[in-house]
Protein backbone atom coordinates (compact mmCIF):
# COMPACT_ATOMS: atom_id res chain seq x y z
CA UNK A 1 0.00 0.00 0.00
CA UNK A 2 1.28 3.44 -0.99
CA UNK A 3 0.71 6.63 0.94
CA UNK A 4 0.35 9.68 -1.32
CA UNK A 5 0.36 13.11 0.27
CA UNK A 6 -1.95 15.81 -1.08
CA UNK A 7 -2.23 19.45 -0.13
CA UNK A 8 -5.36 21.43 -0.97
CA UNK A 9 -5.96 25.17 -1.16
CA UNK A 10 -7.42 26.72 1.97
CA UNK A 11 -10.89 27.26 0.54
CA UNK A 12 -11.24 23.58 -0.32
CA UNK A 13 -9.82 22.44 3.01
CA UNK A 14 -12.47 24.54 4.75
CA UNK A 15 -15.19 23.18 2.46
CA UNK A 16 -14.22 19.56 3.09
CA UNK A 17 -13.30 20.16 6.77
CA UNK A 18 -9.74 18.97 6.25
CA UNK A 19 -7.38 20.32 8.93
CA UNK A 20 -4.11 19.84 7.04
CA UNK A 21 -2.36 17.62 4.57
CA UNK A 22 -4.30 14.64 3.21
CA UNK A 23 -2.70 11.20 3.14
CA UNK A 24 -4.30 8.83 0.64
CA UNK A 25 -3.73 5.11 0.62
CA UNK A 26 -3.33 3.98 -2.99
CA UNK A 27 -2.41 0.79 -4.79
CA UNK A 28 -0.66 -0.10 -8.03
CA UNK A 29 0.71 2.71 -10.18
CA UNK A 30 -1.06 5.90 -9.01
CA UNK A 31 -2.05 8.50 -11.59
CA UNK A 32 -3.56 11.93 -11.39
CA UNK A 33 -6.89 10.32 -12.27
CA UNK A 34 -6.73 7.67 -9.57
CA UNK A 35 -5.49 10.20 -7.03
CA UNK A 36 -8.46 12.51 -7.70
CA UNK A 37 -10.85 9.55 -7.64
CA UNK A 38 -9.50 8.53 -4.25
CA UNK A 39 -9.61 12.09 -2.93
CA UNK A 40 -13.23 12.59 -3.99
CA UNK A 41 -14.21 9.19 -2.61
CA UNK A 42 -12.91 10.18 0.80
CA UNK A 43 -14.22 13.76 0.63
CA UNK A 44 -17.38 13.80 -1.52
CA UNK A 45 -17.89 17.52 -1.03
CA UNK A 46 -14.84 18.07 -3.26
CA UNK A 47 -16.66 16.58 -6.25
CA UNK A 48 -17.03 19.20 -8.95
CA UNK A 49 -14.69 21.67 -7.28
CA UNK A 50 -11.37 20.49 -8.73
CA UNK A 51 -12.58 18.89 -11.94
CA UNK A 52 -15.81 18.72 -13.88
CA UNK A 53 -18.38 16.20 -12.69
CA UNK A 54 -18.90 14.69 -16.12
CA UNK A 55 -15.83 15.29 -18.29
CA UNK A 56 -13.42 14.93 -15.34
CA UNK A 57 -11.40 17.75 -16.87
CA UNK A 58 -9.50 20.00 -14.47
CA UNK A 59 -11.35 23.24 -13.76
CA UNK A 60 -9.63 26.08 -15.63
CA UNK A 61 -8.33 27.90 -12.54
CA UNK A 62 -7.11 24.86 -10.63
CA UNK A 63 -3.48 23.73 -10.96
CA UNK A 64 -1.53 20.59 -10.03
CA UNK A 65 2.10 21.01 -8.95
CA UNK A 66 4.66 18.52 -7.60
CA UNK A 67 8.44 18.27 -7.48
CA UNK A 68 8.62 21.91 -8.62
CA UNK A 69 6.88 20.96 -11.86
CA UNK A 70 3.53 22.04 -13.24
CA UNK A 71 1.62 18.82 -13.89
CA UNK A 72 -1.66 20.56 -14.68
CA UNK A 73 -1.67 19.66 -18.35
CA UNK A 74 -0.33 16.13 -18.03
CA UNK A 75 -2.55 13.32 -19.21
CA UNK A 76 -4.76 12.24 -16.28
CA UNK A 77 -3.59 8.65 -16.71
CA UNK A 78 0.13 9.47 -16.69
CA UNK A 79 1.87 7.96 -13.65
CA UNK A 80 2.54 10.35 -10.79
CA UNK A 81 6.21 11.29 -10.21
CA UNK A 82 8.06 8.65 -8.15
CA UNK A 83 8.75 11.19 -5.39
CA UNK A 84 5.00 11.71 -4.98
CA UNK A 85 4.30 8.00 -5.04
CA UNK A 86 6.96 7.38 -2.39
CA UNK A 87 5.52 10.11 -0.18
CA UNK A 88 8.69 12.18 -0.31
CA UNK A 89 6.97 15.01 -2.20
CA UNK A 90 3.49 16.44 -1.81
CA UNK A 91 0.99 16.62 -4.68
CA UNK A 92 -0.17 20.22 -4.57
CA UNK A 93 -3.64 21.25 -5.73
CA UNK A 94 -3.51 25.01 -6.11
CA UNK A 95 -5.90 27.79 -7.05
CA UNK A 96 -4.39 29.60 -10.03
CA UNK A 97 -3.20 33.14 -9.59
CA UNK A 98 -6.14 35.12 -10.88
CA UNK A 99 -7.42 38.53 -9.90
CA UNK A 100 -11.11 38.60 -10.61
CA UNK A 101 -13.69 40.48 -8.63
Amino acid sequence: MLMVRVELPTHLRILAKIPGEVQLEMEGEPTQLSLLNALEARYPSLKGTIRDHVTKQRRPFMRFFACEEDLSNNWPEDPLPPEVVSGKEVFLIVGAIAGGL
Partner: protein
Amino acid sequence: MRTVRVLVGTRKGAFILTSDLKREQWKVEGPHFAGWEIFHIKGSPVDPNRIYVSQSSSWSGQVIQVSTDGGKTFEPAGNEFIYEGETGTHQWYDGKPHPWEFKRVWHLEPSLTDPDTVYAGVEDAALFKSTDAGRTWKELAGLRQHGTGSAWQPGAGGLGLHTMLLDPKNPGRMYIAISAAGAFRSDDDGASWRPINKGLQSKYIPDPNAEVGHCVHRIALHPSNPEVLFMQKHWDVLRSDNGGELWQRVSGNLPTDFGFVIDVHAHEPETIYVVPIKSDAEHFPLDGQLKVYRSKTGGNEWEALTNGLPQENCFVNVLREAMDVDDCESCGVYFGTTGGQVYASNNSGDSWNAIVRDLPAVLSVEVQTC
Protein backbone atom coordinates in the same frame (compact mmCIF):
# COMPACT_ATOMS: atom_id res chain seq x y z
CA MET B 1 -38.94 35.37 21.40
CA ARG B 2 -39.62 35.95 17.72
CA THR B 3 -36.78 37.29 15.67
CA VAL B 4 -36.20 38.77 12.27
CA ARG B 5 -33.35 37.19 10.34
CA VAL B 6 -31.84 38.85 7.28
CA LEU B 7 -29.83 36.52 5.06
CA VAL B 8 -27.29 38.45 3.01
CA GLY B 9 -25.32 37.02 0.10
CA THR B 10 -22.25 38.99 -1.00
CA ARG B 11 -19.34 38.76 -3.39
CA LYS B 12 -17.15 37.35 -0.62
CA GLY B 13 -19.36 35.43 1.75
CA ALA B 14 -22.70 35.28 3.53
CA PHE B 15 -23.83 37.27 6.53
CA ILE B 16 -26.76 36.70 8.87
CA LEU B 17 -28.28 39.71 10.62
CA THR B 18 -30.72 39.18 13.48
CA SER B 19 -32.95 41.43 15.54
CA ASP B 20 -36.04 41.32 17.67
CA LEU B 21 -39.32 42.51 16.19
CA LYS B 22 -38.50 46.14 16.96
CA ARG B 23 -35.76 45.87 14.34
CA GLU B 24 -33.64 48.58 15.90
CA GLN B 25 -30.60 46.66 17.17
CA TRP B 26 -28.94 44.14 14.89
CA LYS B 27 -26.43 41.39 15.47
CA VAL B 28 -24.17 40.62 12.51
CA GLU B 29 -22.70 37.14 12.01
CA GLY B 30 -20.29 36.23 9.25
CA PRO B 31 -18.73 35.94 6.88
CA HIS B 32 -19.84 32.39 6.30
CA PHE B 33 -18.06 30.76 3.32
CA ALA B 34 -15.50 33.58 3.35
CA GLY B 35 -14.09 34.40 -0.03
CA TRP B 36 -16.82 32.67 -2.04
CA GLU B 37 -19.53 34.41 -4.02
CA ILE B 38 -22.92 33.85 -2.42
CA PHE B 39 -25.40 34.54 -5.16
CA HIS B 40 -28.36 33.57 -3.03
CA ILE B 41 -29.21 32.37 0.47
CA LYS B 42 -32.83 31.64 1.29
CA GLY B 43 -34.78 29.84 4.00
CA SER B 44 -37.67 27.46 3.68
CA PRO B 45 -41.08 29.02 4.45
CA VAL B 46 -42.12 25.68 5.97
CA ASP B 47 -39.08 25.30 8.22
CA PRO B 48 -37.22 28.60 8.67
CA ASN B 49 -34.22 26.80 10.12
CA ARG B 50 -33.70 25.04 6.79
CA ILE B 51 -31.54 27.45 4.82
CA TYR B 52 -30.19 26.84 1.33
CA VAL B 53 -27.08 28.59 0.03
CA SER B 54 -25.62 28.97 -3.43
CA GLN B 55 -21.84 29.23 -3.00
CA SER B 56 -19.58 29.58 -6.03
CA SER B 57 -16.18 30.74 -7.17
CA SER B 58 -14.25 31.09 -10.40
CA TRP B 59 -11.74 28.56 -9.07
CA SER B 60 -13.89 25.81 -7.71
CA GLY B 61 -17.31 26.21 -9.30
CA GLN B 62 -20.61 25.58 -7.61
CA VAL B 63 -21.31 24.32 -4.12
CA ILE B 64 -24.68 24.08 -2.41
CA GLN B 65 -24.76 24.39 1.37
CA VAL B 66 -27.66 23.56 3.63
CA SER B 67 -28.33 24.48 7.23
CA THR B 68 -30.88 22.75 9.43
CA ASP B 69 -30.31 24.96 12.47
CA GLY B 70 -31.04 28.44 11.22
CA GLY B 71 -27.56 29.16 9.92
CA LYS B 72 -25.50 28.12 12.95
CA THR B 73 -23.92 25.30 10.92
CA PHE B 74 -23.93 24.31 7.28
CA GLU B 75 -23.18 21.11 5.39
CA PRO B 76 -22.32 20.79 1.68
CA ALA B 77 -25.08 19.18 -0.37
CA GLY B 78 -25.10 18.09 -4.01
CA ASN B 79 -23.62 20.23 -6.73
CA GLU B 80 -24.15 18.09 -9.82
CA PHE B 81 -26.28 20.09 -12.24
CA ILE B 82 -26.48 18.10 -15.46
CA TYR B 83 -28.71 19.27 -18.30
CA GLU B 84 -31.25 16.67 -19.37
CA GLY B 85 -31.04 14.98 -22.73
CA GLU B 86 -29.34 16.50 -25.74
CA THR B 87 -27.84 19.71 -24.43
CA GLY B 88 -28.56 21.85 -27.49
CA THR B 89 -27.59 25.45 -28.04
CA HIS B 90 -28.70 28.99 -27.28
CA GLN B 91 -27.59 32.19 -28.98
CA TRP B 92 -24.18 33.60 -28.11
CA TYR B 93 -23.29 37.30 -28.04
CA ASP B 94 -22.25 37.11 -31.68
CA GLY B 95 -25.57 35.57 -32.69
CA LYS B 96 -24.08 32.13 -33.26
CA PRO B 97 -25.36 28.94 -31.59
CA HIS B 98 -23.54 28.19 -28.34
CA PRO B 99 -23.84 24.99 -26.32
CA TRP B 100 -25.48 25.21 -22.94
CA GLU B 101 -22.82 25.23 -20.21
CA PHE B 102 -23.56 25.17 -16.49
CA LYS B 103 -21.83 28.05 -14.69
CA ARG B 104 -23.56 28.75 -11.39
CA VAL B 105 -26.76 28.80 -9.39
CA TRP B 106 -28.26 32.27 -9.31
CA HIS B 107 -31.42 31.57 -7.34
CA LEU B 108 -32.69 29.01 -4.84
CA GLU B 109 -36.42 28.80 -4.23
CA PRO B 110 -37.51 26.52 -1.40
CA SER B 111 -40.93 24.89 -1.78
CA LEU B 112 -43.94 26.42 -0.05
CA THR B 113 -44.97 23.04 1.35
CA ASP B 114 -41.96 20.74 1.73
CA PRO B 115 -38.66 21.75 3.35
CA ASP B 116 -36.79 19.06 1.40
CA THR B 117 -37.92 20.40 -1.98
CA VAL B 118 -36.03 23.30 -3.49
CA TYR B 119 -35.63 24.74 -6.98
CA ALA B 120 -32.44 26.15 -8.47
CA GLY B 121 -32.32 28.70 -11.25
CA VAL B 122 -28.98 28.47 -12.99
CA GLU B 123 -26.74 30.01 -15.62
CA ASP B 124 -26.84 29.01 -18.51
CA ALA B 125 -30.54 29.39 -17.99
CA ALA B 126 -32.31 26.29 -16.75
CA LEU B 127 -34.36 25.19 -13.79
CA PHE B 128 -33.45 22.29 -11.52
CA LYS B 129 -35.39 20.65 -8.71
CA SER B 130 -34.27 18.71 -5.67
CA THR B 131 -36.64 16.71 -3.48
CA ASP B 132 -33.97 15.49 -1.08
CA ALA B 133 -32.80 18.74 0.50
CA GLY B 134 -30.30 19.54 -2.22
CA ARG B 135 -28.47 16.23 -2.33
CA THR B 136 -29.48 15.48 -5.94
CA TRP B 137 -30.78 17.72 -8.69
CA LYS B 138 -32.86 17.03 -11.79
CA GLU B 139 -33.50 19.51 -14.55
CA LEU B 140 -37.09 20.52 -15.34
CA ALA B 141 -36.18 20.38 -18.99
CA GLY B 142 -39.54 21.52 -20.31
CA LEU B 143 -38.41 25.09 -19.80
CA ARG B 144 -35.23 24.95 -21.85
CA GLN B 145 -36.75 22.70 -24.46
CA HIS B 146 -40.17 24.32 -24.92
CA GLY B 147 -39.24 25.82 -28.27
CA THR B 148 -37.73 29.28 -27.82
CA GLY B 149 -34.61 28.18 -25.91
CA SER B 150 -32.41 28.13 -28.97
CA ALA B 151 -33.17 31.87 -29.44
CA TRP B 152 -32.25 32.96 -25.92
CA GLN B 153 -29.25 35.25 -25.70
CA PRO B 154 -27.33 36.18 -22.55
CA GLY B 155 -27.53 39.62 -21.04
CA ALA B 156 -24.33 41.40 -20.02
CA GLY B 157 -24.32 39.45 -16.76
CA GLY B 158 -24.85 36.08 -18.43
CA LEU B 159 -27.83 33.92 -19.35
CA GLY B 160 -29.08 33.57 -15.80
CA LEU B 161 -32.38 32.27 -14.48
CA HIS B 162 -32.56 34.66 -11.56
CA THR B 163 -36.15 34.85 -10.41
CA MET B 164 -38.65 32.21 -9.40
CA LEU B 165 -42.09 32.72 -7.90
CA LEU B 166 -44.32 29.94 -6.59
CA ASP B 167 -48.03 30.69 -6.66
CA PRO B 168 -49.44 29.93 -3.19
CA LYS B 169 -53.05 29.76 -4.37
CA ASN B 170 -52.65 27.74 -7.54
CA PRO B 171 -50.59 24.60 -6.84
CA GLY B 172 -48.43 23.81 -9.82
CA ARG B 173 -48.25 27.37 -11.11
CA MET B 174 -44.82 28.95 -11.08
CA TYR B 175 -43.06 31.82 -12.78
CA ILE B 176 -39.43 32.34 -13.69
CA ALA B 177 -37.45 35.12 -15.35
CA ILE B 178 -34.28 34.97 -17.40
CA SER B 179 -31.89 37.67 -18.56
CA ALA B 180 -32.21 38.27 -21.45
CA ALA B 181 -34.98 35.91 -22.50
CA GLY B 182 -37.96 37.14 -20.50
CA ALA B 183 -40.61 35.75 -18.19
CA PHE B 184 -42.13 32.26 -18.40
CA ARG B 185 -44.98 30.44 -16.68
CA SER B 186 -45.73 26.83 -15.90
CA ASP B 187 -49.13 25.59 -14.76
CA ASP B 188 -48.13 21.97 -14.27
CA ASP B 189 -45.44 22.08 -11.59
CA GLY B 190 -42.66 22.90 -14.02
CA ALA B 191 -43.26 20.17 -16.59
CA SER B 192 -44.18 22.54 -19.42
CA TRP B 193 -43.58 26.24 -19.91
CA ARG B 194 -44.49 29.12 -22.17
CA PRO B 195 -43.28 32.70 -22.53
CA ILE B 196 -45.44 35.41 -20.93
CA ASN B 197 -43.98 38.56 -22.40
CA LYS B 198 -46.94 40.06 -24.27
CA GLY B 199 -47.05 43.79 -23.69
CA LEU B 200 -43.34 44.14 -23.02
CA GLN B 201 -41.54 46.55 -25.33
CA SER B 202 -37.77 46.56 -25.50
CA LYS B 203 -36.08 49.03 -27.82
CA TYR B 204 -32.76 47.22 -27.55
CA ILE B 205 -33.94 44.18 -29.52
CA PRO B 206 -34.77 44.12 -33.25
CA ASP B 207 -38.46 43.42 -32.72
CA PRO B 208 -39.47 45.42 -29.64
CA ASN B 209 -42.52 43.20 -29.14
CA ALA B 210 -40.80 39.86 -29.63
CA GLU B 211 -42.05 36.77 -27.84
CA VAL B 212 -38.67 36.34 -26.12
CA GLY B 213 -35.47 38.38 -25.81
CA HIS B 214 -36.58 40.83 -23.13
CA CYS B 215 -34.22 41.54 -20.28
CA VAL B 216 -36.53 41.01 -17.32
CA HIS B 217 -34.67 41.94 -14.15
CA ARG B 218 -37.17 40.86 -11.51
CA ILE B 219 -40.79 39.92 -10.98
CA ALA B 220 -42.77 39.90 -7.74
CA LEU B 221 -46.21 38.99 -6.48
CA HIS B 222 -48.24 39.26 -3.30
CA PRO B 223 -49.34 35.89 -1.92
CA SER B 224 -52.91 37.07 -1.33
CA ASN B 225 -53.36 38.09 -4.96
CA PRO B 226 -50.96 36.05 -7.07
CA GLU B 227 -52.70 36.77 -10.37
CA VAL B 228 -51.14 40.23 -10.16
CA LEU B 229 -47.46 40.36 -11.07
CA PHE B 230 -45.07 43.28 -10.94
CA MET B 231 -41.97 43.51 -13.08
CA GLN B 232 -38.79 45.58 -13.17
CA LYS B 233 -37.52 45.16 -16.69
CA HIS B 234 -34.18 46.49 -17.92
CA TRP B 235 -36.09 49.68 -18.65
CA ASP B 236 -39.77 49.92 -17.60
CA VAL B 237 -41.75 48.95 -14.54
CA LEU B 238 -44.80 46.90 -15.47
CA ARG B 239 -47.72 44.98 -14.01
CA SER B 240 -49.91 42.16 -15.17
CA ASP B 241 -53.38 41.51 -13.76
CA ASN B 242 -53.77 38.10 -15.33
CA GLY B 243 -50.81 35.94 -14.39
CA GLY B 244 -48.53 37.41 -17.03
CA GLU B 245 -50.88 37.05 -20.01
CA LEU B 246 -50.55 40.76 -20.69
CA TRP B 247 -48.30 43.42 -19.20
CA GLN B 248 -48.82 47.16 -18.97
CA ARG B 249 -46.27 49.81 -18.19
CA VAL B 250 -46.73 51.51 -14.81
CA SER B 251 -43.55 53.58 -14.64
CA GLY B 252 -45.68 56.72 -14.25
CA ASN B 253 -43.78 59.56 -12.61
CA LEU B 254 -40.57 57.62 -11.83
CA PRO B 255 -37.55 59.79 -12.64
CA THR B 256 -35.97 56.84 -14.45
CA ASP B 257 -37.50 53.42 -14.86
CA PHE B 258 -34.27 51.50 -15.23
CA GLY B 259 -33.52 49.33 -12.21
CA PHE B 260 -33.15 45.84 -10.88
CA VAL B 261 -35.29 45.22 -7.79
CA ILE B 262 -39.03 45.28 -7.27
CA ASP B 263 -40.97 44.00 -4.29
CA VAL B 264 -44.41 44.07 -2.72
CA HIS B 265 -45.45 45.21 0.78
CA ALA B 266 -46.22 42.27 3.08
CA HIS B 267 -49.78 43.38 3.89
CA GLU B 268 -50.77 45.75 1.08
CA PRO B 269 -50.87 43.92 -2.27
CA GLU B 270 -50.91 47.16 -4.26
CA THR B 271 -47.97 48.77 -2.46
CA ILE B 272 -44.76 48.18 -4.34
CA TYR B 273 -41.15 49.31 -4.13
CA VAL B 274 -38.41 49.95 -6.70
CA VAL B 275 -34.98 51.56 -6.60
CA PRO B 276 -34.53 53.59 -9.80
CA ILE B 277 -31.06 53.47 -11.31
CA LYS B 278 -29.85 56.15 -13.72
CA SER B 279 -29.43 54.06 -16.86
CA ASP B 280 -28.20 50.82 -18.35
CA ALA B 281 -24.79 52.46 -18.84
CA GLU B 282 -24.62 54.18 -15.44
CA HIS B 283 -25.59 51.73 -12.74
CA PHE B 284 -26.04 54.15 -9.86
CA PRO B 285 -28.82 56.38 -8.52
CA LEU B 286 -29.70 59.66 -10.23
CA ASP B 287 -27.68 62.63 -8.98
CA GLY B 288 -25.89 60.50 -6.38
CA GLN B 289 -29.09 60.36 -4.29
CA LEU B 290 -30.25 56.94 -3.15
CA LYS B 291 -34.04 56.85 -3.26
CA VAL B 292 -36.53 54.05 -2.89
CA TYR B 293 -39.77 54.75 -4.72
CA ARG B 294 -43.05 53.45 -3.36
CA SER B 295 -46.37 53.22 -5.13
CA LYS B 296 -49.49 52.55 -3.07
CA THR B 297 -51.57 52.23 -6.20
CA GLY B 298 -49.83 49.30 -7.84
CA GLY B 299 -47.78 51.58 -10.05
CA ASN B 300 -48.03 54.82 -12.02
CA GLU B 301 -48.10 57.07 -8.94
CA TRP B 302 -44.79 56.97 -7.10
CA GLU B 303 -43.35 58.76 -4.08
CA ALA B 304 -39.67 59.06 -3.24
CA LEU B 305 -38.56 57.65 0.12
CA THR B 306 -35.35 59.29 1.25
CA ASN B 307 -35.44 59.61 5.04
CA GLY B 308 -32.22 58.01 6.29
CA LEU B 309 -30.80 57.26 2.85
CA PRO B 310 -27.70 59.08 1.52
CA GLN B 311 -28.69 62.07 -0.59
CA GLU B 312 -25.29 63.03 -1.92
CA ASN B 313 -22.28 61.26 -3.41
CA CYS B 314 -23.95 57.87 -3.46
CA PHE B 315 -23.02 55.78 -6.50
CA VAL B 316 -23.95 52.24 -5.53
CA ASN B 317 -26.22 49.80 -7.32
CA VAL B 318 -28.97 47.60 -5.90
CA LEU B 319 -28.93 44.23 -7.64
CA ARG B 320 -31.97 42.17 -8.59
CA GLU B 321 -32.02 39.75 -5.63
CA ALA B 322 -31.15 42.42 -3.09
CA MET B 323 -34.56 43.52 -1.76
CA ASP B 324 -37.06 41.80 0.49
CA VAL B 325 -39.79 42.54 3.02
CA ASP B 326 -40.65 41.02 6.39
CA ASP B 327 -44.17 40.21 7.55
CA CYS B 328 -44.09 41.99 10.90
CA GLU B 329 -47.18 44.02 11.79
CA SER B 330 -45.41 47.15 10.59
CA CYS B 331 -43.88 45.84 7.38
CA GLY B 332 -40.10 45.93 7.19
CA VAL B 333 -38.38 46.62 3.89
CA TYR B 334 -34.72 45.73 3.31
CA PHE B 335 -32.22 46.20 0.51
CA GLY B 336 -28.49 45.76 0.02
CA THR B 337 -26.11 47.73 -2.16
CA THR B 338 -22.98 47.05 -4.12
CA GLY B 339 -21.28 49.36 -1.61
CA GLY B 340 -21.91 46.83 1.14
CA GLN B 341 -24.67 48.55 3.06
CA VAL B 342 -27.90 46.85 4.03
CA TYR B 343 -30.64 49.39 4.62
CA ALA B 344 -33.77 48.57 6.57
CA SER B 345 -37.04 50.30 7.25
CA ASN B 346 -39.31 49.09 10.05
CA ASN B 347 -42.17 51.32 8.90
CA SER B 348 -42.94 50.36 5.32
CA GLY B 349 -40.24 52.62 3.90
CA ASP B 350 -41.03 55.89 5.66
CA SER B 351 -37.55 55.94 7.21
CA TRP B 352 -34.38 53.92 6.78
CA ASN B 353 -31.26 52.90 8.67
CA ALA B 354 -28.13 51.12 7.55
CA ILE B 355 -28.21 48.00 9.70
CA VAL B 356 -24.74 47.06 8.51
CA ARG B 357 -22.13 48.84 6.40
CA ASP B 358 -18.97 48.01 4.48
CA LEU B 359 -19.77 44.41 3.62
CA PRO B 360 -18.58 43.11 0.27
CA ALA B 361 -20.94 43.99 -2.59
CA VAL B 362 -24.38 42.65 -1.71
CA LEU B 363 -25.85 40.18 -4.19
CA SER B 364 -28.97 39.04 -2.37
CA VAL B 365 -31.14 39.86 0.63
CA GLU B 366 -33.80 37.54 2.03
CA VAL B 367 -35.75 38.06 5.24
CA GLN B 368 -37.27 35.58 7.64
CA THR B 369 -39.52 36.20 10.62
CA CYS B 370 -39.17 33.25 12.91
